[in-house]
C-alpha cells in the first residue's frame, strides 16, 4: 500500500519536472518583440526594402525580435506618442521634435556621402539661368522638398530668411512637387526649366553627380547651409538602457561586409540600406539645426 503510494508520488513529481522543463524551454526561446518606426522617405515599399536587412541584423546582434514598421512622416509623432515604437529612425529634424516633446534618446546617426553623418542644404539654379546670386531669386519660380526635410526645406528657408528674402512674399511662387522622390523632382525641375531655383539636399546632388545622372557643370550653387546631422536612430524613454546600448554598439560596429538572410536571400546590410556606416553623434551636434528651426519658426519651436 505504502509502496504503491510512493510510486504514484514519484510519477507525479517526474511529470511535473518534465512539464517544467519543457515550459521553461519554450519561455527562453521566445525573444522579446520591439518595433522600430522607420520614417518613409519615398515609399513604404522602398523603406522596407532598405531597412528589413538592417532590422534583421539588429535582431541577430541583440537577441530582440525587432519588427520594421514604415511610418508616414506626418503620422510619426502621433504614433510615437501612443507608445508604438521602442526605436525610431527619422531625419534629424524629426529627431529634435521627438526629443524636445517626448524625450527621445539619441542612439547613432547614419553616415552617407562626403560629410559622413552630416549634410547640408543648397539653393541651386541651372547654369545659364541668368541668376548668379541669392538676391536674384526674387520674383522667380522655386521648388522645395517636403516640409519636414531638414536639408530639402528648412535649411534653404533659413538661408533665404537670413539673406532678407521672405519665401512667402518675395518669390514669384514656390511649390513642393507631388508624390515620391520630391528632392529629385525639384532638382530635375530646375535642370529642365520648370523652376528657376530649387531647394536641393547636397546629398542628393552628390549622389546624382556620383551616378553620372547630372553633371556639376549643369547647375550653380547659389547658397549652402552649414552642416547638420543626417538620419538618426533614437530610443523611446521607456526602452531599457541595456537595449539602447546593445543597439548602439551593433550599429557603430556595422561594416560593409556584414550580411543577413532575408526571404532566403543573403544581403549586405549597409548596401541594402544605402548607408556607409553609423556614427555616435552628441545631442549638441544638433544645435545648428535647432537654431535653423527657431529662426524659420518651424516645429518644435513654432510660435503662432
Amino acid at each position, binding site marked *: 500500500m505504502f509502496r504503491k503510494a510512493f510510486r504514484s508520488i514519484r510519477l507525479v513529481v517526474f511529470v511535473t519536472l518534465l512539464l517544467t522543463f519543457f515550459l521553461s524551454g519554450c519561455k527562453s526561446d521566445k525573444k522579446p518583440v520591439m518595433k522600430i518606426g522607420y520614417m518613409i522617405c519615398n515609399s513604404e515599399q522602398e523603406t522596407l526594402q532598405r531597412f528589413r536587412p538592417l532590422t534583421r541584423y539588429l535582431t541577430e546582434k541583440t537577441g530582440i525580435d525587432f519588427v520594421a514598421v514604415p511610418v508616414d512622416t506626418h503620422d510619426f509623432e502621433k504614433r510615437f506618442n501612443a507608445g508604438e515604437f521602442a526605436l525610431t529612425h527619422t531625419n534629424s529634424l524629426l529627431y529634435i521634435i521627438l526629443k524636445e516633446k517626448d524625450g527621445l534618446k539619441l542612439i547613432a546617426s547614419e553616415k552617407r556621402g*562626403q560629410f559622413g553623418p552630416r549634410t547640408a542644404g543648397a539653393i541651386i539654379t541651372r547654369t545659364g539661368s541668368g541668376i548668379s546670386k541669392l538676391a536674384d531669386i526674387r520674383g522667380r519660380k522655386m521648388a522645395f522638398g517636403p516640409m519636414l526635410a531638414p536639408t530639402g526645406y528648412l535649411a534653404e528657408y533659413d538661408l533665404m530668411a537670413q539673406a532678407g528674402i521672405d519665401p512667402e512674399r518675395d518669390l514669384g511662387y514656390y511649390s513642393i512637387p507631388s508624390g515620391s522622390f520630391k528632392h529629385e523632382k525639384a532638382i530635375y525641375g530646375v535642370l529642365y526649366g520648370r523652376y528657376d531655383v530649387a531647394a536641393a539636399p*547636397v546629398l542628393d546632388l*552628390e549622389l546624382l*553627380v556620383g551616378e*553620372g545622372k547630372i553633371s*556639376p557643370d549643369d547647375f550653380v*550653387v547659389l547658397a549652402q547651409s*552649414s552642416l547638420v546631422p543626417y538620419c538618426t536612430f533614437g530610443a523611446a524613454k521607456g526602452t531599457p538602457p541595456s537595449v539602447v546600448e546593445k543597439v548602439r554598439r551593433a550599429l557603430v560596429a556595422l561594416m560593409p561586409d556584414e550580411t543577413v538572410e532575408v526571404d532566403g536571400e543573403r544581403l549586405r546590410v549597409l548596401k541594402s540600406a544605402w548607408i556607409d556606416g553609423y556614427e555616435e553623434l552628441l545631442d549638441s551636434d544638433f544645435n545648428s539645426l535647432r537654431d535653423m528651426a527657431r529662426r524659420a519658426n518651424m516645429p518644435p519651436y513654432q510660435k503662432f
Partner: protein
Amino acid sequence: MLTDGYDKWLCFLLVVTLIALGVLLSGTGARKVGPAPDKALEREIAYQSQLNFLKKLYEPVESLRRTGNLQAALFKLDELARTYPNEAYGLILKGEILYRMGALEEAVACYVRGVRLNGDYVDWKTPLSRRAELQKVADEGLRLLGDKARANPENRSLAAALKNVYYLRSRLAGGCD
C-alpha cells in the same frame, strides 16, 4: 692541306668570321664602359610629368576652390573620382576642401587615406608636400576632437576620429605606415 681553291676559300671565310666576331665583342665592351644612363634624371622626369598631369587633371577643382565655390569643387572631385577613385592628390585636395567647410573629422579621414597612398604629402622636400596644412589640421584635430573625446570617453566614433589624428601626427613626426 690548303692545296685546292675550295679549302682556301673556306679558310678565308673562317678568318673573316673570327675578325668580325672580335670586332663585335670589342664593340660591346666599349659600350659597357661608356657613361650609364642617369636614373635619377629619369626618375625626376617621370615625377615631373606625373605632377604636371595631376595639376592639369585637378585644375577645374582648384579653380573652383580658389573662387570659393567649395561645394562645386567637391562635386567636380566626385566626378573625377569615378575615373581615378584612389588618387592621393584628389584625396588631399578633398581633405583641404572639407576642412574649409567645417567637416574636420571627414577632412582628417581624407588626409589619412591620401598620406597612406603617397607619403610625399608629408615630406617637406617634395613638390607635392602639403605638410604645413596637414600639421595645422592635425593640431586642430588634436585640440578639438581630443577635448570632445575626453568629455565623452564612451563615444567610439570620437575615439576613431582621434585615432586618425594620431596617425597623421605620427606621419608628420617621421613615422612610417
